[in-house]
């Protein structure tokens, strides 16, 4: 069984991120669970968690993590606290993306994370950082602002995200508040190449496109989009693909068509309600633009994905989130993005005529 386990794990190495890789690793975990030590099962799940994030299956991270956290507590001193807490950080960024999970539970999970940080002597910086994202997603801007202040004043330590990632998030925070100039200013060190890491500036470019359009900087948006699309690969970037789709629907329809044909399978496969909602809101905007052009060509997408189906899907997901959050933020999301699109379209057309 040991050799079968090792064989599966080396097979995983050869595979690109995706479904096949996940299922080989799941088999390895099952072998470890049934026939090897808890330590093997733990290590296998920890690498599986990484793959789940990189392959666009964040819900599977939550499952493997939950077992690892319990195992970590069951065997004190056996596993690295830093690693499991690092994964916990990802989990905080994902757990509220399930509309099925109530706010009470989310708060309990946040509290558990906080308690563990304090016990381990880690800074609460990541805790507040994750609270900012959670509150922004609920449309709770006042609370988000409070947490942002806490985040920036908490001290940095080895457990904080790297400075490039943080700087990137500062910028995105202001974009979310629609303070685009300020956001751009914060991203400057990244764009000048002064700080970078594994995921920055790749994800920075995508987040800049909409703010640039809003500020009327169409030429820069075009340049940025070029860089952005090069750095996106695979189902893990579904939300980002959605944003690119919105941009191309406005600026370059043939590219938008190619992009939707390429990414819709990821979207349909995606089970995480929040990511799904974001992506289909983008798809809706695309379809509106597509139909407004009155094209004859049929899109090479599954027949059941019609405008009505997308509307229903968005309504279903948004309602579930709003019910959980006790407000109407998500239900207004699609409409407000649509208004935004109409405005941008007029401005873009005027610029294009010049």
């Amino acid at each position, binding site marked *: 069984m040991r050799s*079968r386990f090792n064989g599966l794990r080396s097979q995983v*190495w*050869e*595979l*690109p991120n995706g*479904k*096949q890789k*996940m*299922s080989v690793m*799941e*088999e390895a*975990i*099952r*072998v470890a*669970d*049934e*026939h090897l030590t808890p330590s093997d099962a733990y290590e296998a799940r920890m690498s599986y968690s990484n793959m789940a994030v990189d392959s666009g299956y964040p*819900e*599977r991270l*939550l*499952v*493997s*993590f*939950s*077992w690892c*956290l*319990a*195992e970590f*507590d069951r065997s004190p001193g056996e596993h690295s606290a830093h690693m499991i807490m690092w994964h916990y950080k990802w989990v905080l960024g994902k*757990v509220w993306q*399930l509309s*099925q*999970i*109530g706010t009470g*539970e989310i708060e*309990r*999970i946040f509290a*558990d994370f906080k308690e563990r940080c304090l016990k381990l002597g880690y800074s609460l910086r990541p805790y507040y950082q994750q609270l900012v994202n959670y509150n922004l997603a609920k449309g709770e801007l006042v609370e988000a602002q409070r947490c942002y202040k806490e985040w920036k004043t908490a001290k940095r330590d080895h457990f904080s995200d790297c400075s490039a990632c943080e700087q990137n998030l500062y910028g995105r925070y202001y974009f979310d508040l629609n303070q685009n100039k300020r956001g751009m200013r914060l991203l400057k060190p990244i764009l000048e190449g002064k700080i970078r890491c594994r995921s920055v500036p790749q994800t920075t470019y995508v987040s800049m496109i909409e703010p640039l359009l809003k500020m009327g900087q169409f030429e820069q948006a075009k*340049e940025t989009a*070029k860089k952005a699309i*090069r750095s996106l690969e695979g189902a893990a970037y579904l939300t980002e693909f959605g944003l690119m789709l919105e941009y191309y629907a406005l600026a370059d329809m043939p590219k938008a068509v190619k992009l939707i044909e390429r990414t819709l399978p990821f979207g349909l496969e995606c*089970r*995480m*309600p929040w990511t799904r909602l974001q992506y289909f809101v983008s798809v809706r905007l695309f379809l509106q633009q597509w139909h407004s052009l009155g094209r004859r060509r049929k899109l090479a997408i599954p027949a059941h994905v019609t405008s009505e189906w997308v509307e229903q899907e968005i309504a279903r997901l948004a309602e579930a989130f709003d019910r959980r959050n006790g407000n109407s933020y998500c239900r207004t999301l699609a409409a407000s993005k649509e208004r935004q699109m109409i405005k941008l379209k007029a401005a873009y057309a005027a610029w294009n005529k010049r």
Partner: protein
Amino acid sequence: MNAMNFQVNLNGMIDLLSNHLYSDNSVFVRELLQNAVDAITARKKRGHIFEPQVTVELHAAHTAAFHDNGCGLTEPEIRDFLSRIGSTSKKEELDAGDDFIGQFGVGLLSCFIVCNEIVLVTRSSNEGAPALEWRGRPDGTYTIRELATSIPIGTSIYIRAKEDYEHYFDYDQMDELLRRYGSFLDTPIVLEGPWGPTRINAVLPPWRIGRREALEYGEREYYNKPLDAIPLRSAIGEAEGVAYILPYAVSLQEEKRHRVYMKQMMISEKNNRILPAWAFFVNAIVNVNGLKPTASRESFQENDLFFAVQHELGESIKRHLIDLSERDPELFATIIRIHYASIKTLAIEDEEIYRLFMPYLSFETVSGRMEMREIIQTLSDREREDGYGMQVYVTTTLDEFRQVARVAKAQNMMVLNGGYVHDFELIRKLTDIWEDVALDVLDVLDFSSRFKPLRPLDALQAAPLLAMADRVLKPFQCESSIRWFQPAEVPVLYNTNDEINFLKMAEKTKREGNELFADVVQAISEELYDVPYARLCFNYNNPLVQKAIEAEDPELRRTCIELFYTQALLMGNYPMSQEELRLMNDSLLVFMERGLDGVDGGGI
């Protein structure tokens, strides 16, 4: 307030260069060659007529001298360019139209990685310029003096190895380094050795010679005969080169090692970016004139221009392959056979390549590996014979394919395995080329329902077996059914989809995971994923199954079910839980006992 200057610690900077900026300490050879070649270019620009040459001499006590008959330096130039780090003589001209290789003004510093003093003797090509000597040390101090002797126009640089770096100054090593960096430079480079002078750059680069010579060159360089040499060209960025198609298959994960030259000077032997990522079946040797290098000058700044060059070079490869399919089908077939993994990646990215290669790519079918054109041929033959329609099924994973392969073959179904990397995506686009083909993704859990249901009377007879099977298999998340299907020797068809292991993991997490996440795990496994039970379909066509149905002893029937189930798991190579192993053991023991009892009863 006084404005003050920063003090830069030169020793620290040298450490930085050697340990962080350059990947190899031998780069001083490149930097010295480059300064020499640039000086010669500058002198030519001034309109001088001369025989350009760079000469390298090795002296006693591990000392090397690099001579060039380029433009030389005046005292102000020495002060400006040699003694101030980061300034370069090449900046202004750079914008004009640059023929120079260097541009950062840190090149000479790289010499301090291997020596403790640089002595530079020079006479400028300006009329009446004096001979000058500059001595620089890594602590940042230097001296300049005028020499009384007369020397020819040009520059000589003398460096003596510091401890532990002597090996760079051996003849063989220097010969190798000069060849590595300078083989393709236009300016003649001569190494003075114990047996007289040797011209180290007498060969033409592979992009300036014919295909046959280029192939020979490739064979010498890579110790392997390449399948083909593809000329590369990009007008944008002025790039040219040769891509050698490797004679062996390479893994997707393998790091690419293209050899890249900038203005004919070798800058990296392991560049992995100059060609698109899909081109991993070639090794390229490329010269680029129009791209901006990074500070280490071992790669390029990745701007729009860079990606345009990368794209153009990729297009060269594509065009060549398309052309090859008509010109040399045999070679074309060999390339596909060896590099099918790479070509599959390429075909997904590019429609043209997809149409070109798809007929020749092979896929796993229930009747063994077949090229797509054979598959299509088989389908249309069948269509002519029995009017079945051109129906193709594809599975999403290898495991699903294995579950159904044997039975599907017996039904004459064309099922393709989409479980290997890229195959699913390639097969999914089949109808782009062959419009008559009907393609469906096979739902394995639903697979058994396509078989003939039993006649009511038979169904009634089988009902007790099924009821018991559902009870026995429920703890293992498995449902049962019964159908009549071919081949008769297969007693049961066991199907699970590829999420079963994940769901089993979720089950375990429900029992052993952190309590805080109990609802999270519950929501994921029950709402985001519809819990798919595995299915065990009994074959009514199989004699053993018939006997199990007829068995009146419930204990025996139960044991049969347990064995059918665990055998199916074993045959499918599924990891068995402790509980399933116990089930198998127990049922085997029961059979043994019954068998032995039977023998006793027989009175032998």
